[in-house]
């Protein structure tokens, strides 16, 4: 039997962590893109669109991400699209992130006083100009802290991709733990790696929030 040193374990986990980072970045970027479309639809003042977005968000926030992953993984196969754990994870995490991000941003926009919209209206600005010049700049400031905070949630969410067989940090941890019979060491390292990815982001998010709340 080959003996695994702590460095061997850590090195292999670090290699796998690259996939966690990549998946998080893609999920976050994809989620931001789809999330902005949802946000626009939700602000469009058209009933059917608003309803669609509200139900979309409720569905993704009211069901487990793991089930969403399974449904997309098996659902794609069912309609004849070839699935890989990677593609299923990217799609599921993108949709999941988009629901959360659009909801976060909607909250930020809602917190802008109504008078701002009315003032923009009275300046005869169109909907997009109102968003771009009046509401957007104010809402973006408020949204930085929760958006960065969501990034932590996105990183942690990628751990579930391990369940459908995508080899990222958690899956690598399970595999190494099975090979080395050192689950305590391995999962401590896995946890420490997630922590070192997430904590700086959490810390930054908190700092931004504090800075903002002190100004008001």
């Amino acid at each position, binding site marked *: 039997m080959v003996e695994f040193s702590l460095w061997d374990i850590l090195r292999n986990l670090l290699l796998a962590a690259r996939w966690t980072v990549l998946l998080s970045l893609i999920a976050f970027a994809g989620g931001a893109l789809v999330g902005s479309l949802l946000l626009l639809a939700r602000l469009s003042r058209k009933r059917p669109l608003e309803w669609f977005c509200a139900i979309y968000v409720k569905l993704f926030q009211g069901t487990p991400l793991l089930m969403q992953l399974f449904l997309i993984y*098996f659902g794609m*196969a069912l309609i004849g699209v070839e699935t890989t754990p990677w593609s299923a994870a990217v799609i599921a995490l993108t949709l999941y992130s988009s629901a959360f991000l659009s909801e976060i941003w909607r909250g930020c926009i809602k917190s802008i006083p109504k008078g701002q919209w009315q003032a923009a209206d009275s300046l005869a600005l169109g909907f997009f100009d109102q968003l771009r010049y009046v509401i957007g700049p104010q809402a973006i400031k408020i949204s930085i802290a929760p958006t960065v905070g969501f990034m932590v949630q996105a990183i942690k969410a990628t751990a579930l991709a391990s369940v459908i067989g995508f080899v990222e940090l*958690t899956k690598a*941890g399970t595999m190494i733990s099975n090979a080395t019979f050192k*689950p305590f060491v391995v*999962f401590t390292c*896995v946890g420490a790696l*997630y922590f070192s990815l997430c*904590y700086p982001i959490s810390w930054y998010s908190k700092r931004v929030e504090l800075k903002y709340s002190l100004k008001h």
Partner: protein
Amino acid sequence: MNVQLDLGAVFSEWPLLLKGIFLTTFMIVVSGALGVLLGCVLAWMSSQNRGAQRAIASLYIEVLRNTPFIVQLFFIFFGLPSLGIKLSPLAASMLAMTINLSAYSAEILRAGIESIPKGQLQAAKSLALKPLQTYTNIVLPQAFKNTWPALVSQIVIVMLGSSVCAQISTEELSYAANLIQSRNFRAFEAFFVATVAYLVLSLIVRSFLDRVIAKLIFKDTHG
């Protein structure tokens, strides 16, 4: 393209589903109560001026908030036995859910505690209440009231997260779905039914906490 869904094949295994739903509910009831309780203790520790207590509480909270639930679960179930702590899948799941919820609810409650006007604490002091009495009788009820919606959301999030517990073979709802699909190969349908069940459960838990429990807790606080 011809897709046929056979939900009947899943519903015919209803005793398994029912058992899964029951266990998921049981887990969140116990872990929900214990997690929030532990969260109150942690929030108390981190609102103290004693450095050590505060440092321990914030280390605990930050570690749990910045690692995925599934890793916490694996650590408890696979890792702890090497320290001689062997837990059954169900016990490990409930422990993981409890400590996970405790960290988040401590953070939520801490925010609620900070928003309580200073005058309340001074009034409590002038009535010669001890710090712990002040905390349980004055601070905590108000903090609960201010943060109840956030606490409810967090409990629902932990319940949905518990679907991961099937990975250590806890026989909850997603385990039932997995078992059913291994019997009839109707994977999509099995997970679809389980997903709908989770959605309904989350609505029930939410309205139960908002209507029944909130009334019980807040019946004698005013405002």
